[in-house]
């Protein structure tokens, strides 16, 4: 997508709404790493005046919007291989410094994709034995060390099976790491009691979310807001 593309703030489709809702997770002044895939689309919901520093683990802080090929700098990509733009005050650094930042508590928030999230916050997003094993890249350190770890994922996989489970069955990326999950159906927190519903997507009922979740879903008292 080009830098000047205008994106509606309330997209009609469920994925678009999920991305827009997740974008509100970002507080002013945060340092944020957006995982490859859906989380990257959050960028389109951050206005030009919003104070935020996007980090990409291949070595940049102050990542700007992606650029079309004809405007791209061949030496400037994000960790997903997209050509990105620099914003004023951005900086480049090597991989050792990039993860020093992650491990030492300077990354306020990371948004990651997931294959599975367990009710104790365990995350699996890097390996499906026998089918998909490209290596974890930077996901382990992002999930283990970001000060806040949230997941953005469709609520169910392509076959309709829940991705939110009692326990992960796939190899873990990090144990007990996930604090909040944004899906096309709901916003769910990982609490000491397990999954707790916070918000439902427009037109989605609590019963539908409960049905699509592979572990008990706790309901707080009072109304469940809609996003």
């Amino acid at each position, binding site marked *: 997508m080009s830098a000047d593309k205008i994106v509606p703030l309330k997209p009609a489709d469920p994925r678009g709404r999920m991305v827009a809702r997740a974008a509100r997770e970002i507080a002013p002044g945060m340092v944020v790493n957006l995982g490859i895939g859906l989380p990257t689309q959050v960028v389109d919901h951050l206005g030009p005046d919003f104070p935020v520093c996007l980090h990409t683990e291949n070595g940049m802080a102050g990542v700007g919007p992606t650029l079309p090929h004809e405007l791209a700098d061949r030496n400037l990509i994000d960790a997903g291989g997209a050509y990105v733009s620099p914003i004023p005050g951005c900086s480049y650094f090597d991989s050792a410094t990039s993860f020093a930042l992650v491990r030492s508590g300077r990354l306020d928030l990371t948004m990651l994709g997931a294959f599975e999230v367990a009710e104790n916050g365990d995350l699996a997003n890097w390996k499906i034995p026998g089918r998909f094993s490209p*290596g*974890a890249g930077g996901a382990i350190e992002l999930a283990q060390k970001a000060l806040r770890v949230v997941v953005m994922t469709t609520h169910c996989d392509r076959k309709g099976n829940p991705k939110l489970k009692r326990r992960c069955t796939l190899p873990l990326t990090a144990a007990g790491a996930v604090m909040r999950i944004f899906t096309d159906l709901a916003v769910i927190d990982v609490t000491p009691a397990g999954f707790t519903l916070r918000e439902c997507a427009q037109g989605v009922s609590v019963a539908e979310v409960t049905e699509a979740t592979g572990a008990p879903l706790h309901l707080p008292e009072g109304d469940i807001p809609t996003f």
Partner: protein
Amino acid sequence: MRLSDKTCAMAEAVAAIPDGATVMVGGFGVPGTPFALLAELARQDKRELTLIKNDANETGTGVDLLIASGRVRRLITTHIGLNANAIAAMNEGRIEVEFCAQGILAERVRAGGAGLPALLTDIGMQTELSAGKQIVQVDGRCLMVETALRADVALIHADRADPFGNLAYRATARNFNPPMAMAATTVIAEAEVLLPLGGLAPDEVETPGVFVDHLCPMAEITEEYGVVRR
């Protein structure tokens, strides 16, 4: 006193690499990958190599020239998802692959370059990456020993250089190049631009020439270095 001239033709620098060598290769995706040095390594038909590289490039480019032609025995890496070829070679047992967490690969290489035998970390502690790792207790906390990585040779891509081997990098083409440029017995750097001695300001140097053995000016910036149109 003057600083010595380490400029060298690529063919000559690469010729000294023996079969069976452990070779670190800079780069994260296209930026920072020393495609010219890798092409020369393939042209000279070096074999039984152990590669240490963040990724396996994409099919048909970079280290895949070596993997696809069976020249690589072992690969220490973090993510090879863009190279179906490398994944197939791994699954079929044609190459041995050791996966590291990305920042820990960077730190193991940096420790090698800093003359530190090992570091202690909790990264990957409750994942399968911890399998077989030595655990020590420090101040009541369990930590994993991650041993330093050093290589026989490091292949580095720099933006600018001078004849003593001082290097500077561009944008996200840094990645693994600065730590790897410290962590090998023989460090070979290719540079897009060769400046005269003193042409790189001393405050601007990112890898001091002291770490670099051979500086190879690039004849041209070939297509592989360009923007990838997927």
